[in-house]
C-alpha cells in the first residue's frame, strides 16, 4: 500500500506506534487537566468567598464577544475533525481546505479576543488600573484577576495549537499527510482539549454574572 504509515524509532508496527502516540497525548492531556485544575480550584474558592462581588465583576464581561468566540472555536473543532478524517482516508484536497479553515477560525478567535481585551481596557477592567471601576469589591477584583490570567493562558495554548495545525498544513504541502495521519489525530485531540477548556470558561467567565 502506497500510504503505509511512516515508522519512527523505536516502533516496528504502525498500529503500536499509533497506540503510543494517542496514549502519550492522553497522558499529556491528563497533565493539562491537572494544570487547569489549579486554576479552577482558585476560581471556586474565590467565588465561594464572595459570591455577590464575584457576580458583579462577571457582569462586566463582554458576553457578545465571548459567545462569538465560543462559536468560532466550536466550528474550528468541527473543521479539524473533518481534516483528520480526510487525511486518514487520503482525501488530501479536503484535508488542505479543512486545515486552512481551522487556521482561519483559530486566528479569528485570537483577533476577536484582542478586540475584547481592547474594550476591557478602555473600561479600565484591569485590577491594577487606578480607574478600575470595581475597586474595593473583593470578589470582582479576583474575578478580573482570573479573567486576565486564564484567558491569556488559554490564548497561549491556542497559539501552540495553531502551530500544530500549521505543521499539518505543511505535511499536506509536502504530500506526506496521508502517511502521517496519526499526527493529525493527536493534533485534533489537543485542539479539542483547548476547546473544551474554553467551553468551561465560557459559562464560568461570561454567564456567571447574568
Amino acid at each position, binding site marked *: 500500500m502506497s500510504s503505509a504509515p511512516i515508522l519512527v*524509532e*523505536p516502533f516496528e508496527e504502525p498500529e503500536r506506534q499509533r497506540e503510543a502516540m494517542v*496514549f*502519550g497525548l492522553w497522558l499529556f492531556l491528563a497533565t493539562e487537566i491537572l494544570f487547569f*485544575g489549579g486554576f479552577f480550584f*482558585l476560581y471556586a474558592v474565590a467565588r465561594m*468567598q464572595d459570591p455577590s462581588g464575584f457576580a458583579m465583576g462577571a457582569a462586566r464581561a463582554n458576553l457578545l464577544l465571548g459567545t462569538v468566540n465560543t462559536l468560532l472555536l466550536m466550528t474550528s473543532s468541527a473543521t479539524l475533525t473533518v481534516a483528520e478524517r480526510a487525511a486518514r482516508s487520503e482525501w488530501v484536497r479536503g484535508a488542505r481546505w479543512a486545515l486552512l479553515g481551522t487556521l482561519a477560525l483559530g486566528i479569528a478567535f485570537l483577533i476577536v479576543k484582542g478586540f475584547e481585551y481592547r474594550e476591557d481596557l478602555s473600561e479600565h477592567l484591569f485590577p*491594577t488600573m487606578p480607574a478600575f471601576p470595581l475597586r474595593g469589591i473583593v470578589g470582582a477584583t*479576583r474575578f478580573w484577576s482570573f479573567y486576565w*490570567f486564564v484567558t491569556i493562558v488559554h490564548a497561549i495554548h491556542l497559539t501552540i495549537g495553531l502551530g500544530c495545525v500549521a505543521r499539518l498544513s505543511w505535511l499536506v504541502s509536502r504530500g506526506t499527510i496521508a502517511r502521517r495521519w496519526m499526527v493529525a489525530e493527536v493534533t485534533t485531540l489537543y485542539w479539542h482539549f483547548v476547546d473544551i477548556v474554553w467551553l468551561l470558561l465560557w459559562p464560568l467567565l461570561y454567564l456567571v454574572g447574568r
Partner: protein
Amino acid sequence: MKADDTGLLAREPGETSYLTAGTTLRSWLLSTDHKRIAILYAVSITVFFFIGGAAATMIRLELFTPAGDLTTADEYNRLFTLHGVIMVWFFLIPSIPATLGNFLLPLMVGAKDVAFPRLNLMSWYLYVTAGLFTLAALLLGGVDTGWTFYTPLSTLYSNSYVLLAAFGIFVVGFSSIATGINFIATIHLLRTKGMTWMRLPLFAWAMYATSLVMALATPVLAMAMLLICAERLLGLPIFDPRVGGDPVLFQHIFWFYSHPAVYIMILPAMGVVSEIIACEARRRVFGYQFMVYAMLVIAVIGFLVWGHHMFVAGQSPFASMIFSFLSFVIAVPSAIKVFNWTGTLYRGRIRFSAPMLYALGFVGLFTMGGLTGLFLASIPVDVHLSDTYFVVAHFHYIMVGGAVSAFFGGLHFWWPKITGRLYNENFARSAAIWLFFGFNFTFFPQFVLGYLGMPRRYHEYPPEFQVWNVMSSTGAVVLAVGYLMPLFYLGYSLLHGERAGDNPRDATGLEWATSSPPPQHNFHAPPVVRSEPYAYHDWDEAPGDADETPQTDAP
C-alpha cells in the same frame, strides 16, 4: 539453549557500543538515544549538585559560630534558597529517573529506546534552559524567599529575582513531565515479548510509580509558578490579602505538588535499592507483589497528604486531622518495603560490595527519616517542631540519606553496564562507609537542635546551640570530602578501569543480557523473557553459588 540465547542479545565483535557510535559533540547533543541522554543528564545534574553543595557549604560555615560573621541575614536567605531550589529541582527530582531511569528502563523492558525519543531529548534541553534561567537569577543576586516561594513574600515584598527563578522552575517542570509521560508510555507499550507486568523488575515499577506522580503533580506546580509570575509581572492580585486574595491558597497548590515531589525523589531510590539488595544478597525479593503495590499506593496516597505542611498555617483543625491520619497511613506501605528488604536479606548470601553498602545505608537512614516523619505527622508534636531543625534533619535523612545514597548505590551498581569498566571496589567501599558516617555526623545533631527549639533559616542563634552546630558543620566537612571521593576513583575507572564483562554481578535482569556498554540499539535481537525477575535461586532452596536464572532463560 541458555548460552546461545544470551549471546544473541549482546553486540557482535565488530559492532560499536553506544559510547563510540559517534564521537562528535553534535552526535551527543542531538542524540535521541536514551543512553546518551542519560549521560547528558548525569553530567548536568552533577554540575548542579556541586553548585547546590557549594551553597550548603557556605550555610554550614556560617553556622559554625552563633554570630552572623560570614554572611548577612539577607545573603543567608539567598544561600538557603539557592541550595533548596538547585537541590530539589535540578538535582534530586531528575537524579535517578533522568539518569539511571533513562539509561535502564528501555533495557529492562527489552525495548530499543523510550517511546518518544525526541521528546526525551527535548526534556534535557528544557532542563538546561531552566537551569540557565535559575543560574541567571543566582548570578544577578539570588532569590530570598526560600525554595517554597511562599506568598505574599514572594509576590509583594521580595526584591530579589523571584520572577526569573519561578520561570526557571516552571520550565524545569515540563522536563520532568516529558520524562514521566515517556516512561509511562514506554512501560505500557514497549515491553518485549514475555515481559508481563508481574515480571517487571522493581526498578521499572518504581519508574512507573514515579512517572505517575511526575505527570500528575508537576502541572500544578507549573500553575503555582505561573500565578506568582502573573502577580509579580502583571500585578494581578491573586494571593494579595489586601484585596481579598488568599496567601494560604498558594501553600495549598504549592504543596499539592511539592509533597508528591518527595515521592518523586524517594520512589526511584526504593527501586534502585530493591535491585541492589536482591542481586547482592543472591535472594529473590521477599514479597515482590507487595513491593509493587506498596509503591503504587505510596504514589496515590502521596497526593492526599499535602496539608501536613500547613498544620500551623491556619487551616481548619478538621482538615489537619484528616491530613495527619493520611500521613500516618502512607507510612504503612513504606514500612512494608523496609520489612521486605530485611526479609530479602534474611538467609541471603550477602556480598558487602560498594552498592550493597549504599543500599544497606539507605535502609537504615530511610527508616530513621521515615520514623521522624511520623513525629511531624502528629499534630501536637508538629506544632512544637514546625520550622525547627528537626524538620531540616528529617527531610535530609529522606532526601540525602535516602535518595542520594540510593543514587550513589545505583551509580556503582550499574557503572560496569554504563561504562563497560570496573571501579576500584575498596575505594568505593571506603567512600560508602565514609559517606554514611559523615551523613549522620552532619544531620543527627540537627534533630537535637530542633528538639531544643532552634528555628531553621536563621544565620544567627543563641550561644547554647553552638556545640550541636559545630558538630553538624564538622560533619558537613566529612560529607563534602565523601562526595568528592567517587569523582576520583570513578574518573580513574572511566579512563583506566579494567574491562567489565557483560554481567559482572551475575544479575538476572535484561539489562545484563546485552553487552557492557550496550550497543546503540540495546539488543542485537529483540529479547524474549521467560522467567520472573530475581530468580537467584530455586523457590524451595536457599541461595547457592551461581544458581541464578536470567530473565531470558526458562526457569
